[in-house]
């Protein structure tokens, strides 16, 4: 994975920023934000989505855990065709997208921190203002552009202000750390200075011994040896010419040997101290540079600049190369980002560029805000915050402006959460609100995702309904499962639930209705069956016997009611006999119909003589043991005299007339003629 990040919009964003600096800044963000890129991508309804999510979560966690090895995700390649539809900050997925690249927030939890920052008040307290003034004073004191001040004085001036700056809580006592580093470096420098003096003294002593040895060799004088200490180190003219007074050979041997040994000792001591001083200075540099690197990583850019300026004042040997561990993140940051050896000067330049970039982004944020371009404004402010959250330009963003962005970001987060839990109804509401709130909010992808998933879910629901109609239980369950996975809160799922509840209720109701029908049928309560025919017909439609029964009942009751209606009309016209006869005819067919019997009973009181005559006639007619044709005919004729149009009476007469034998002595069966001949009334 390449540590270089391609920035397609870098020229548009900053025409004057060199490519390397931009890469530098981007990698800086990379260093400050442990990476685990993950852009929200609504699942396709597959059941393995949870597994994917867990996998992603694990990756994120791994990214967090492996934050020591700084990496930058390549451009997001979401598996979803609807990927990248979400806002730039996705706190639920712990990612941030800057300049088309997605970075994991990891343990830094930038999303939450950014929201905290947005909810916080601008830091414009008196202490904060004093702190910033102090920082400015320090920067000015140690600035290379401050003229007519000696270097030690510059160090003293700047150093004296550091404790004051450290007293401010927002400083995080970084200035104290810086003071300690500077003090340690100064002590180291002083130690080296003393060491150098000692080495110089050793060198002087060595030269003196060498000079004495030379003199002794030349003079060869023993007298000299008695006063050696007095003459050693004196000019040649005072000690005399050694060549002129050579020492005796036996004495010269011990002295010279002793002097040679001492010269060697001095040389060894010198070398030892030279090594120690060099090591001490290197150690001081390394410790100081480590602090600078740490401050840079912490995005304490002002402190970095203060530190580098002190560094240049303390270590005036011109060497600013940073001694970083090979293959370390910080080393990679410089070597892979800039392609050069890391230097303190480079660190200073990068810090300055970061501060300038943050200012530029805040300015862009305010411009976007002016035109209600909340989406872009939020992006700019997030980028600025990610670069330098401790910079004054970020800390002094007014509260109302922060509040606007906060509400927008919260809405965006709500949208993400709604999409995450697949509550597309709520997501659509939030989306519409975001569109109204921000003029530059790009809703197309989110809308596309919502439309696609809602359509997919609805399609599954339709398939489930069809399966339900076809009685395909397996397909129904499968489609319902898919629909639920795609959109768990789909309102149409409630409709399915209602349908299923209704079916269950219907099942119980069907049994109850069938039982009711059978009971009423056994009781010959056809009227009740007729009255509840609209309940019974649907549930017995597949039962042939019950279906035939209810059809017959409905047909007969309809006929009875029709006759009753006609009888009512006749009765209203004063012809109660006709009304009674019409109903009485049905009584023979439906002797248990309560409505019919009730109507007949009412009419009977009005046509009592007529009905008595008919009844008596019928009694005599039906008396098979003692046939009373005469009596029966007499009554039928009386009935007919009451109601001449009586069909009952006429039919009775006709029936009885067929019982009349041609001759008293001949049986009726012996009568000749066609059995189909009818008796004919004579008018």
């Amino acid at each position, binding site marked *: 994975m390449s540590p270089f990040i391609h920035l397609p919009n870098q020229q548009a964003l900053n025409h004057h920023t060199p490519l390397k600096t931009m890469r530098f800044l981007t990698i800086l963000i990379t260093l400050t934000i442990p990476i685990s890129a993950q852009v929200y991508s609504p699942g396709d309804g597959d059941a393995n989505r949870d597994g994917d999510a867990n996998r992603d979560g694990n990756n994120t966690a791994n990214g967090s855990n492996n934050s020591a090895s700084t990496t930058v995700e390549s451009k997001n390649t979401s598996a979803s065709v609807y990927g990248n539809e979400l806002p730039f900050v996705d706190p639920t997925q712990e990612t941030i997208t800057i300049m088309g690249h997605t970075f994991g927030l990891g343990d830094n939890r930038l999303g939450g921190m950014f929201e905290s920052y947005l909810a916080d008040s601008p830091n414009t307290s008196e202490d904060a203002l004093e702190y910033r003034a102090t920082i400015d004073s320090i920067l000015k004191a140690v600035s290379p552009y401050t003229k007519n001040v000696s270097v030690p004085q510059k160090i003293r001036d700047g150093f004296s202000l550091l404790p004051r700056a450290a007293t401010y809580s927002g400083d995080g006592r970084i200035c104290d750390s810086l003071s300690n580093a500077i003090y340690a470096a100064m002590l180291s420098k002083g130690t080296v200075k003393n060491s150098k003096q000692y080495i110089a003294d050793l060198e002087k002593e060595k030269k003196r011994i060498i000079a004495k040895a030379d003199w002794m060799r030349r003079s060869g004088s023993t007298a000299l040896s008695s006063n050696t200490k007095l003459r050693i180190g004196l000019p040649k003219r005072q000690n005399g010419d050694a060549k002129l007074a050579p020492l005796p050979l036996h004495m010269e041997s011990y002295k010279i040997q002793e002097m040679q040994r001492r010269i060697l000792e001095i040389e060894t001591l010198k070398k030892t101290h030279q090594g120690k001083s060099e090591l001490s200075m290197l150690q001081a540099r390394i410790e100081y540079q480590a602090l600078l690197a740490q401050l840079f990583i912490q995005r304490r850019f002002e402190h970095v600049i203060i530190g580098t300026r002190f560094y240049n004042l303390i270590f005036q040997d011109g060497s600013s190369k940073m001694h970083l561990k090979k293959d370390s993140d910080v080393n990679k940051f410089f070597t892979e980002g800039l392609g050069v050896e890391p230097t303190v000067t480079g660190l200073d330049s990068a810090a300055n560029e970061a501060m300038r970039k943050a200012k530029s982004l805040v300015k862009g944020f305010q411009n976007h805000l002016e035109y209600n371009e909340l989406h872009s404004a939020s992006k700019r402010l997030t980028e600025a915050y990610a670069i330098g959250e401790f910079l004054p330009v970020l800390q002094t963003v007014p509260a109302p402006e922060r509040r606007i962005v906060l509400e927008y970001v919260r809405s965006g987060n709500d949208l993400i959460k709604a999409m995450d839990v697949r509550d597309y109804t709520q997501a659509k509401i939030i989306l519409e609100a975001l569109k109204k709130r921000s003029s530059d909010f790009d809703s197309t992808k989110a809308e596309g995702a919502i439309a696609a998933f809602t359509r997919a879910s609805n399609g599954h629901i339709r398939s489930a309904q069809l399966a339900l109609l076809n009685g395909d239980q397996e397909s129904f369950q499968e489609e319902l499962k898919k629909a639920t996975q795609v959109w768990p809160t789909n309102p149409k799922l409630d409709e399915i639930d209602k349908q299923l509840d209704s079916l269950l209720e219907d099942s119980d109701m069907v049994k109850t209705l069938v039982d009711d029908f059978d009971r009423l049928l056994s009781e010959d309560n056809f009227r009740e069956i007729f009255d509840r025919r609209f309940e019974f017909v649907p549930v017995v439609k597949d039962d042939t016997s019950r279906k035939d029964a209810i059809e017959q009942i409905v047909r007969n009751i309809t006929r009875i009611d029709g006759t009753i209606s006609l009888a009512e009309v006749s009765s209203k016209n004063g012809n109660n006999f006709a009304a009674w006869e019409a109903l009485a005819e049905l009584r023979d067919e439906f002797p248990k119909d309560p409505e019919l019997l009730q109507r007949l009973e009412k009419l009977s009181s009005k046509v009592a003589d007529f009905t008595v005559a008919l009844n*008596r006639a019928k009694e*005599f007619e039906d008396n098979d043991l*003692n*046939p*009373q*044709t*005469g*009596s029966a*005919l*007499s*009554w039928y*004729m*009386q009935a*007919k*005299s009451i109601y001449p149009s009586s069909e009952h009476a006429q039919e009775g*007469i006709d029936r009885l*007339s*067929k*019982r*009349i*034998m*041609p*001759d*008293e002595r001949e049986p009726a069966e012996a*009568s*000749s*003629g*066609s059995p189909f*001949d*009818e*008796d*004919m*009334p*004579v*008018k």
Partner: protein
Amino acid sequence: MARRSSSNSKKKSQFAIYSLAFVLIIMALSIGKSFLNQQAQHFTDLNEMSLADLKESGTSLSGNEYRISGEIADRMILANNRGLLVSIKSETAKGEAGLIPLHIPPGVNQINLERGHNYTFKVEVNREGLPVAQDIKAD
């Protein structure tokens, strides 16, 4: 005064004569009517059929001969040459009024039987209590 008395007794005698004549005329008319009635009735040797008995139990009259007089209310030709079935609107001397069914077999003396006309029938009640005409006289 004597004159006034002679006039009053003359008037009295005339009134008596007139009254007597009126009574005689009335008696003569009653006797004549009774005679005429006796002359118009047929089958007077038979009892008049009781409508009440017929309605209550015709078979109780089976085998008996009766006289039925009345107006033909309706008539029906029976198939298979079984004669006629008529209904006689009768009012007995006892004040019973009603319709009496009467079977006129084919062999009975044929006369024109018309609805609304009065006839007197000599009937015999058959075993099912139905009067069967034996003879018919138009009134």
